[in-house]
């Protein structure tokens, strides 16, 4: 029989060590599917490591991949702190991307110093609005936000397809459903020559620090933490719970919207309906790995990005399906959930023999 005894004090080492251990366990567990595919396990790991860290280019790819994950991870972390289950990061990302394209492909012409902030704000605004609806449905009508945000993801992506096949279709796109290219003045500057990593990364890092300060040091952050931990007591203590949820929803959606801006205006330069390979959903894993800490999100996103970039490169080399990366990401979510038990509880094995001796 297993007994959980709550820990009164949790050391920081344990708090940080648990998710790291969970990530490593998930990575180790990947050897099973690799072996099942009949590939050499050690070589596969080596190729993954080289693909993620083996060169400046590899690492720049990792950073480019981490950028949207930091933003969707922050979106999930902020919302989950308030126990607002925003699973709609994917849809909010597309809403942000759509807004960025609407503003940045020629509707407005302005110098970069003006146009870039406009594109960024438009994306954040669209993402925030996208989350406002389910938040209001939750606080006003009691409709579960998990289901509404999940379903809205599908609606948004269909809306994007509709726009790309209709009014926003690129006439020069040779029939492909894609938007016109962003103006050069609307593109986020590259960070390195001939690499894909772009200044969206700086934006993401700044947002991580800003969200950290927001939650830790401001009244609104205080209120978000209180509502998340105990809504009844928060309401009783006079905290405006509804307004807090709306604030969190807007912030969370805006962050996910920024991920869409960053992909369109930083990386791709135009919008397609397969812009995101599930960054919104992966953001949930990033947030959980980070223990919902905004600064932790940065490290968790780097880890997950490493898995994706490494697995892609390994897949090209020895033909193991790159769905392996999704599998590792899913496994690490489950592992980090379980690892949380080791943080919160002291886990004792009580053998039947010992129990008999007691009795």
């Amino acid at each position, binding site marked *: 029989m297993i007994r959980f005894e709550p820990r009164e004090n949790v050391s920081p080492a344990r708090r940080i060590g648990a998710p790291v251990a969970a990530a490593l366990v998930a990575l180790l567990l990947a050897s099973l599917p690799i072996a099942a595919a009949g590939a050499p396990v050690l070589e596969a790991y080596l190729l993954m490591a080289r693909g993620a860290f083996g060169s400046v280019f590899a690492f720049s790819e990792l950073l480019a991949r981490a950028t949207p994950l930091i933003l969707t991870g922050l979106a999930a972390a902020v919302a989950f702190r308030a126990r607002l289950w925003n699973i709609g990061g994917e849809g909010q990302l597309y809403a942000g991307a759509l807004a960025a394209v609407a503003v940045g492909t020629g509707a407005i012409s302005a110098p970069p110093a003006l146009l870039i902030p406009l594109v960024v704000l438009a994306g954040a605004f669209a993402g925030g609005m996208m989350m406002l609806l389910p938040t209001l449905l939750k606080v006003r009508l009691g409709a579960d936000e998990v*289901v509404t945000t999940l379903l809205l993801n599908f609606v948004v992506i269909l809306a994007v397809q*509709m726009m790309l096949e*209709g009014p926003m279709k690129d006439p020069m796109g040779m029939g492909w459903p894609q938007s016109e290219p962003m103006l050069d003045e609307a593109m986020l500057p590259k960070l390195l020559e001939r690499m894909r990593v772009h200044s969206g990364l700086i934006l993401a890092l700044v947002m991580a620090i800003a969200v950290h300060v927001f939650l830790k040091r401001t009244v609104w952050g205080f209120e978000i933490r209180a509502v998340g931990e105990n809504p009844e007591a928060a309401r009783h203590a006079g905290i405006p719970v509804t307004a807090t949820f709306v604030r969190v929803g807007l912030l969370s959606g805006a962050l996910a919207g920024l991920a869409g801006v960053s992909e369109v205006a930083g990386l791709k330069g135009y919008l397609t309906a397969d812009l995101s390979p599930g960054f919104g959903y992966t953001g949930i*894993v990033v947030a959980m790995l980070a223990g919902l800490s905004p600064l932790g999100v940065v490290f968790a996103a780097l880890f997950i990005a490493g898995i994706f970039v490494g697995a892609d490169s390994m897949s090209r080399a020895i033909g193991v*399906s790159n769905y392996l990366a999704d599998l590792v990401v899913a496994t690490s979510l489950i592992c980090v*959930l379980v690892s949380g038990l080791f943080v919160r509880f002291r886990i004792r094995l009580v053998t039947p023999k010992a129990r008999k001796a007691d009795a």
Partner: protein
Amino acid sequence: MSDILEILLTANFWAAALRIATPLIFGVLGALLCERAGVLNLGIEGIFTAGAMAGWMAVWLGAGLWGGVLVAALAGAAFGLVHAILTVPLGLSQHVSGIGVTLFATSLSYYTYRTALPDVSSPPRIEAFQPADIPYLSDLPFLGPALFQQTPLTFLALAFVVVVAFVLYRTPLGLAIRAVGDNPSAIEAQGLSVTLLRMGTVVAGSALMALGGAFLTMSAFDAFFFNMVNGRGWICIALTVFASWRPGKALIGALLFGAFDAFQVRLQTEVGGVVPGQVFLMMPYLLSIAALVVVARKADYPRAMLKPYFRGQR
């Protein structure tokens, strides 16, 4: 106006509605079982995918169709067991665990499919279930083509509505399932195991969900595609609330949904030129949100849902 009536009056239309409803019936029955026992199972979307992939692959590898159905159910049960272990004895967040199971089941299904079939350009096909030809019934005018020319899995889904209703309301097991979702200490105080009861129900419910997935690859289509589940699992979660956790209402909800979906597909062919196709494709999701919003205020969630239970706690 007469066009609309014309659509509604064809047997073809009602046959399509029932066909669209079938996977949802499985899914909603599974979800309502889990939730009746107090466990929200957001693993449903992934379990659908796993059931679709596993059932199809078993048949493709040479199992019989019913063997494939069994394999699908077992796959669903296995992922249900993961969710059950995480949420019941370990008491972890049902929301996050469910999302984790969906990501896990989906990625494992995709990985397995890709590993087994590394480079196929068009998905391989199997000999899927064929519409039944029941003597006399299938030949009835209107009712025959509408109701009695379905594949066996549709009849199985309808049978499960009766079975689940019977178990829930007419057996001691159903009593215990309903009680454990309302007040688990009532179960413990009567000497039953909350853990076993909840885990067992989640595993069984997940097996049912997987059958919904199996219907997609073994009845509705004859191949497995990526993203083929396409939110059907989440729709089931919304419909479960709409059905107020009752098997009979679940059937009605799924049928209404199927009818609406079949209707909009037919409407699409009439006005398709004017309105973009995506508008129609959005309808099921918007309809689900609407269904949820309509009942949300008075929804009577099982009282102990989402709340982990540890022994000796009251």
